[in-house]
């Protein structure tokens, strides 16, 4: 009997918080740092008599996110009521577009096991409201054993886009690449900050296995993944779990399971699955998006990271690796392009950004938008190196000095004692000291007065000039070397 093989069939649902100032159906702020239950009103608290009012910007951000995933905007979409009883849901139902979404039919590319590009189809993105945040602990910070839960309605009514993929994903690695790619693209589009730490991006996965003997396992919905790592681990766990069941001839139950990140397992949800009944939301007429609006949003769409990286490789001569690193974050890519626009050589600017700039930002835990050295200034540094006004070593010293002291370029050059076009001051003294140190016998000869013809002096002078890569002025070298030898 031949060994059974299993092919995972995975679909992912990703919720992203759309980037707006107000909630989806009311004028409450979306500020995530606000104290609990301060951004609330009759609408998002589900008070009797209140009615939803759709936020224009939520629709627009949904369109942007959808376009970033190659989706098509639907001219007419609808809202529904999705019922379930839970204290995080003020109206006892969630207003969601479910089946008639604002954008549909897109894809995201990932690399398969052989490294080939593969399209994961995006079924649609629909708009919906978030539920309130629940804290299952005492408000005084006590954790376990609390007999109560605490509800913060600030999150109720926050605008979400739910992005539903087709079951085209075959591994946890593809799933993570899909999710990371999606995150990058919606960030590029300005549709969402998709900050995982702030719960702005959450994952659910549908996992089933196709067995080589023709059996198909039932679809299991795994919920509660809040990081890429959790997504990866949960899918891997679930594949392993289902494989074991199928191998032993068992049957995988269609169910909802929860990912327990601390224990690294999925557990069957003990709550009976909610009846999914939808009725049309009678308080919101159909959402109509006309061509003029679609055109306007299309014009707002920035170049996507893959297109941008391609351009860097083909037009600027960057390596694919460098291009990928630079385009990972839109602001980094924008910074790089501003450098190039300000006259820096693309390849050298790319090296500077991906090594020095990203290193410093990482050390300082800062975003590139907060970086003190403007791209035009970095371009100037790159240019000075090209013009041999600064050595590479000097340029890096200058750069570090500017980062550490928040100073301007010329200021830093002056402070470091670098004169226009050369190695001078302390830098020169240092080189001389090193040269002398490396040649004790020559030093001894000179100091004993044997170098009457000055040959040995010339020898040291030549070494210093070489060390300074020709950037020191001969007159200064003579003076400084003479002074050093007298010590």
């Amino acid at each position, binding site marked *: 009997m031949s060994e059974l093989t299993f092919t995972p069939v995975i679909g992912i649902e990703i919720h992203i918080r759309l980037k707006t100032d107000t909630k989806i159906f009311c004028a409450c702020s979306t500020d995530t740092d606000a104290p609990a239950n301060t951004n609330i009103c009759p609408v998002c608290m589900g*008070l*009797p*008599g*209140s*009615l939803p009012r*759709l936020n224009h910007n939520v629709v627009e951000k949904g369109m942007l996110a959808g376009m970033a995933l190659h989706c098509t905007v639907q001219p007419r979409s609808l809202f529904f009521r999705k019922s379930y009883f839970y204290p995080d849901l*003020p109206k006892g139902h969630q207003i969601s577009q479910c089946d008639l979404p604002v954008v549909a039919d897109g894809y995201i590319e990932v690399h398969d096991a052989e490294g080939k590009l593969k399209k994961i189809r995006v079924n649609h993105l629909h708009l919906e409201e978030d539920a309130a945040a629940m804290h299952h602990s005492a408000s005084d910070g006590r954790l376990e054993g609390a007999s109560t839960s605490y509800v913060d309605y600030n999150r109720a009514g926050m605008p979400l886009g739910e992005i539903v993929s087709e079951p085209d994903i075959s591994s946890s690695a593809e799933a993570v690449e899909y999710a990371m790619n999606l995150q990058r693209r919606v960030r590029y589009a300005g549709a969402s900050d998709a900050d995982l730490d702030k719960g702005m991006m959450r994952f659910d996965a549908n996992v089933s296995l196709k067995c080589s003997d023709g059996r198909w396992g039932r679809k299991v919905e795994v919920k509660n993944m809040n990081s890429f790592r959790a997504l990866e681990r949960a899918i891997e766990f679930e594949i392993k779990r289902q494989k074991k069941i199928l191998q032993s001839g068992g049957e995988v139950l269609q169910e909802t399971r929860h990912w327990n990140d601390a224990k690294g397992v999925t557990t069957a949800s003990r709550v009976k699955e909610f009846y999914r*009944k939808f009725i*049309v939301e*009678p308080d919101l007429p159909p959402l109509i998006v006309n061509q003029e609006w679609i055109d306007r949003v299309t014009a707002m769409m920035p170049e996507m990271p893959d297109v941008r990286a391609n351009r860097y490789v083909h037009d600027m001569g960057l390596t694919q690796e460098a291009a990928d690193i630079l385009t990972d974050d839109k602001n980094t890519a924008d910074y790089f392009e501003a450098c190039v626009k300000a006259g820096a050589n693309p390849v050298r600017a790319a090296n500077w950004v991906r090594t020095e700039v990203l290193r410093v930002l990482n050390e300082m835990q800062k975003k590139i938008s907060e970086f003190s050295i403007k791209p035009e200034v970095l371009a100037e540094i790159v240019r000075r190196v090209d013009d041999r006004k600064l050595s590479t070593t000097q340029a890096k010293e200058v750069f570090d000095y500017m980062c550490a002291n928040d100073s301007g370029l010329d200021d830093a050059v002056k402070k470091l004692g670098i004169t226009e076009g050369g190695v001078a001051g302390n830098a020169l003294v240092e080189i001389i000291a090193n040269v002398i140190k490396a040649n004790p016998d020559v030093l001894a000869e000179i100091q004993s007065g044997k170098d009457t013809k000055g040959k040995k002096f010339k020898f040291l002078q030549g070494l210093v000039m070489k060390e300074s890569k020709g950037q020191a002025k001969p007159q200064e070298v003579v003076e400084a070397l003479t002074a050093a030898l007298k010590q």
Partner: protein
Amino acid sequence: MELYELDLYEASKGIKDKKFSPKELFESCKKRIDSCEDKIHAFITRTDGTAPVTENPNGIFAGVPTVLKDNLCTNGIRTTAASKILGNWKPPYDATAWKYLREAGAVLMGKVNMDEFAMGNTCGNSAFGPTHNPNDISRVPGGSSGGSAAAVSAGYVPFSLGSDTGGSIRQPASYCGVYGMKPTYGMVSRYGLISYGSSLDQIGPFARTIRDLQLVMSVLAQYDPMDSSCFREKNPDFTHNEDASIKGKRIALVKEFQNFTLDAPIAEAMKKTQKVLENNGAVITEVSLPVVSKYAVACYYALAMSEAHTNLERYDGVRYGYTVNDAAGIKEMFERVRSYGFGSEVKSRIIAGTCLTEPSRCDEYYVAATKVRTLIAQEFIRAFGECDFILQPVTPSLPHKIGEEDEDAMKGYETDLYTLPVNLAGLPGLSFFTGYDDATKLPVGLQLIGPRWSDSEILNAGMILERHLGSPKIANGGVK
């Protein structure tokens, strides 16, 4: 003549002309309420402890008292929808319709009785007990806006607001002998109206003259961005025009309704009214509404309950209303709150609505009903190609005695056939007074309906009918 007997137009004019003060009018109305309320029981909450000060002394309702159906939210004033589940809920905001009245200077005498969550047509299905018909206190005032109709009929206030989901303004107006207007869906903001069937609900006024209805409609019919189903482009003109005419208007009877039996006083009223219309130059014609007459009742209840059960999902005791403090878990808390808080009729409708929208039945019932509704709306559009208005009864019979409700609940639904198609198609409907039945002395009302946005034309026709059929008198309110 007492001040409480004045209609809205007269009361407002008297105050403006300084013939009497708002306080005098208020005191007169309060005295009237004090003398009748024991018998009628229209109020759930009275707010007339001290004379309220008008917010706008120059508004068209400056100093005129009014009452609101208790499903309209009033900031800081108890609002119950006649349900135990809302307990002593004080909304933190005003319904837009009330805000508009307030800003026009109206003062609030209180919140009045209704069937729980507007589910019912007797005003007897209230957690606060039944309201009595001021024309005969042994009889029902109709519902669900029974308190609003009774208050105007008994002379508590010259006008009031109610809501109409399937006849809840028109039927009690007819039972109590006042005028009641159900505006075109989308004409009046629903913001702050506690929803029953959101796509059917509409707020409207009660008054003792058509001119008063026109006054109230002129204030209510304003665009409100808070209600997404409210129409922006419509600017109806409700100016009272004595010269309005119905000459040449085609007024139709519904062919299929002619087979249904009507109580004699209502059949007589139909004949009398047709004559008045003809005498004023209108042409009586006939239209056919086969789908409406056969399927409207089923369609209406399917949709009303489907929407209602989701509108009632929010009552869980966490944020407002009746609650329990000793539940062991959240499920127990919700179950105890909802089981105690909702009345039996509401529970039945919640269960029916839940049942109809479950995945296994959703297409067969809920989705089918939304399609039947399309057919009904189309049928009315066709009919209004052949006529300007439709004349029909509000109910087939006069108000019954309190406690004599039909054993068969579904039969009660059939009596709604004349009112609820209007809500399904979003049409305006006027319930107007035609006179008193000789035998019972009860008022007899009929209904005029028109195409969407014909509200002001209907009221013009109503004015001509009022001129020839007479205006209703203030009911004795059980007081000799």
